[in-house]
C-alpha cells in the first residue's frame, strides 16, 4: 500500500500552523487537515515506509533477533525478498538463495541430499529449512554464525554454493538502477552497501514464521486443531522420548549434539568442531527444528535418511557410541532410544501434524 501525501508547501505550512495553534485544544484538527491533504494526491508524493509488526505466536518463546537494531519495514522486507530470489547474488548469475531454499518444501532443496551450486559443485550438507529464524541463536548445521543478518555471507561466498564475494554482489546491485531505487525506498540511509543488503535479507528471513500447523492450533485451542488419538499418543511419546532435544514449540533447543550417526568416511564431516576447533565438539550438529518435517526430506545433516521411519529406526537401533555421543542417547547403558514399531507409527503420525500449509503457501514469501 502506497500512502501518497500531497506536498504543496503552502498547504503543508498551513497544516503545520493549524497544528501549532490548536495543538492544546483540538487534537483532532490536524488529523482532519492531514486527511484532507491525503485526498489531493497529484504531483509529488512521499512514500511512507510502514513498519511491519512481528507477532510472537502465543505458544512460542520470545524471539532472539534484535528487531530494534533492524526494524522490518514494508520496503525493507520487499527488497530482502527480491534479493532472496535474485541469481545476481551468485557468480554465474543463476543461483539465488531460493534456488536451494524452495518454499513448498519449507525452504529446503527438494530431492537433493546435497545441494548443487555454482558449476554443479556439490556441498556436503543437506539444505536446512528457513523458518522461525528470529527465534534461533545459532545458524547453519555447525553454528558457523550466531547472527541471522550475517548468515547470507556463508552461502554467497562458499565456492560450491554461490561462489561470489560480497564486494562483487554489491557492485552488481549498484549497477542496477532499480536496486538503487529499492534501497532508497527501504532505508533512510539509502546507500547500496553490505550493511543495507544484509539488513534487507535479515528482515525478510526474520519475518518468516511458521506457526499455524494443526499441532499449533491444537495447543492454542484454535479451530481446526483436532488431533486423532494416534497423533495424541504420538505427541505424548514425543514428549517422553524426543523433546529433551527437540524442545519448546520451536522443536529444537538450539544445542549442538552428536546424535550417534556413524560418520560417513567419504565426507568425515566433523560438524561443530569445524567452528570451535574443540575435539569435544566432534560430530556435533545443531538439533534441527521438526516443523514441516514431512516436507523437508531427506533427513540429518548429510541427508542420509529418505524417510521418517528410517530416522526412528536409527534412533532405536542404529546409534553408534563415541566419546562425544550425547549422554541422552546412552541412558542406563543402552544406546539410542527404545521405541516399539507402534510407538514409531504414533510419533510419525504426530510429526505429520507439524506441517504448516499456511506457511508453505504464504504469498508474502513466495517467489512468484
Amino acid at each position, binding site marked *: 500500500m502506497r500512502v501518497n501525501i500531497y506536498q504543496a508547501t503552502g498547504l503543508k505550512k498551513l497544516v503545520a500552523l493549524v497544528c501549532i495553534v490548536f495543538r492544546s485544544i483540538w487534537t483532532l484538527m490536524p488529523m482532519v487537515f492531514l486527511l484532507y491533504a491525503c485526498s489531493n494526491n497529484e504531483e509529488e508524493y512521499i512514500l511512507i515506509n510502514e513498519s511491519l509488526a512481528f507477532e510472537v505466536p502465543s505458544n512460542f518463546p520470545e524471539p532472539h533477533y*534484535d528487531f530494534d*537494531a*533492524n526494524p522490518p519495514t514494508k520496503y525493507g522486507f520487499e527488497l530482502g525478498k527480491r534479493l532472496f530470489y535474485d541469481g545476481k547474488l551468485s557468480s554465474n548469475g543463476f543461483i539465488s538463495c531460493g534456488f536451494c531454499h524452495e518454499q513448498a518444501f519449507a525452504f529446503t532443496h527438494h530431492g537433493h541430499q546435497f545441494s548443487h551450486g555454482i558449476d554443479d559443485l556439490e556441498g556436503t550438507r543437506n539444505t536446512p529449512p528457513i523458518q522461525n529464524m528470529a527465534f534461533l*541463536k*545459532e545458524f*547453519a548445521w*555447525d*553454528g*558457523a*554464525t*550466531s*547472527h*541471522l*543478518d*550475517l*548468515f547470507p*555471507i*556463508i552461502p*554467497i*561466498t*562458499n565456492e560450491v554454493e554461490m561462489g561470489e*564475494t*560480497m*564486494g562483487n554482489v*554489491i557492485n552488481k546491485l549498484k549497477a542496477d538502477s532499480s536496486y538503487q531505487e529499492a534501497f532508497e525506498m527501504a532505508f533512510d540511509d539509502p546507500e547500496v*552497501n*553490505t*550493511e*543495507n*543488503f*544484509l*539488513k534487507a535479507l*535479515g528482515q525478510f528471513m526474520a519475518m518468516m514464521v511458521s506457526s499455524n500447523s494443526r499441532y499449533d492450533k491444537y495447543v492454542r485451542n484454535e479451530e481446526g486443531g483436532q488431533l486423532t488419538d494416534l497423533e495424541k499418543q504420538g505427541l505424548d511419546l514425543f514428549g517422553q522420548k524426543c523433546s529433551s532435544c527437540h524442545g519448546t514449540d520451536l522443536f529444537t533447543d538450539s544445542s549442538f549434539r552428536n546424535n550417534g550417526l556413524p560418520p560417513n568416511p567419504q565426507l568425515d564431516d566433523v560438524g*561443530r568442531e*569445524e*567452528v*570451535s*576447533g*574443540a*575435539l569435544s*565438539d566432534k560430530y556435533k550438529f545443531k538439533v534441527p527444528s521438526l516443523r514441516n518435517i514431512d516436507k523437508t526430506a531427506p533427513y540429518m545433516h548429510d541427508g542420509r535418511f529418505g524417510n521418517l521411519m528410517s530416522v526412528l529406526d536409527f534412533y532405536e537401533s542404529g546409534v553408534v557410541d563415541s566419546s562425544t555421543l550425547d549422554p541422552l542417547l546412552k541412558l542406563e547403558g543402552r544406546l539410542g532410544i527404545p521405541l516399539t514399531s507402534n510407538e514409531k507409527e504414533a510419533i510419525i503420525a504426530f510429526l505429520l501434524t507439524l506441517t504448516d500449509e499456511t506457511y508453505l503457501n504464504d504469498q508474502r514469501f513466495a517467489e512468484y
Partner: protein
Amino acid sequence: MKLNLISTAILFSLIMVGCSSNDTTTDQLTGSGSISIKYDNGYNGNDLIIGAANSANSNGENLTITRLSYIVSNFRLVNSTGEEYVFPKDESYFVISQEADLDNVVLPEIPAGEYTTLKFGVGVDQEKYLQGAEGQGDFLALAESHHMMWSWQAGYKFLNFEGSFTSEIVTDDTEFKIHMGSHGSSLDNYKEVTLALQTNVRVSDEMDSSIHLKIDAAKILVSSNNIQLTEKSVIMVDEVKSPQIAVNVTEMFEVDHIHNGDGHN
C-alpha cells in the same frame, strides 16, 4: 584549633598555587586534534619485507612472509589524570595490511590534553559482531577486500599471517597459514593491548600528534607461547593454539616514539 585552621588554609593555598602552576602547561591545550598511530611492521628487529626470507627464529624456522594483516579496534587514550577517552566505537575498527600499505590509524577530534597510555583491541569483539548488519556497517566490506573475512563462518580473521618456511626437519619450502579469529560463539579470541607511552602524547586545536609503534611479527610465533610451524603449519581454528597466538599477537606491539605536533600543522 585556630592555628590548625590557619595552617590548613596555608596548605590549601599552597596546593592551589601548585595546581595553577601545573595547569599552565595543559591550559594551552584547548579544543581537539587528531592522533595518528603508525603500525610499522618488522620482523625480529629488521624490516618486514613481503616475499623476502628472514633469518631463523629461535625455533630454527626461516620464514618468508607473503601476508601480514590484522584488525585493530576499540581505541582508547588515558590522560595524565587517569581519565579514559573512548574513541567512538562505530568508527573504531581498522585493517592493518602490509601488502596494501595500510599502516596508519587516524583518530580525529581527540579532546585536547596529554595522554599517557594507548589502549586498543586486536580483532572484533563479540558485542560488535552480535550487532549484526547494523554493527558491521562498511567494515565488513573493508575486511573482505583485505582477506580478513572468514566467509565460511561469516566471521572476521583477526590475524592473517601467511608465507612459507623451512626448518631443520622441514627442509622443503612449506606453506604456512595462520588465520586467527573468534570461533563462532564458542571461543572469543578478541584481546586488548595496553601500551604506556614513554613521552606523553599531546593534542589540541593547534597540535595533531602521532604515535609510532613498532611491530615485531616474529612474536606471533615466539613470545609467551611458542608456536612451532614444524609441528603444525596451517593453524586456523585450533582450540589450543589459536588462543595462544592471540596472546602472542598482543605482545608484538611496542611504542617506538611519539611525534608531538610534528609535521601536522
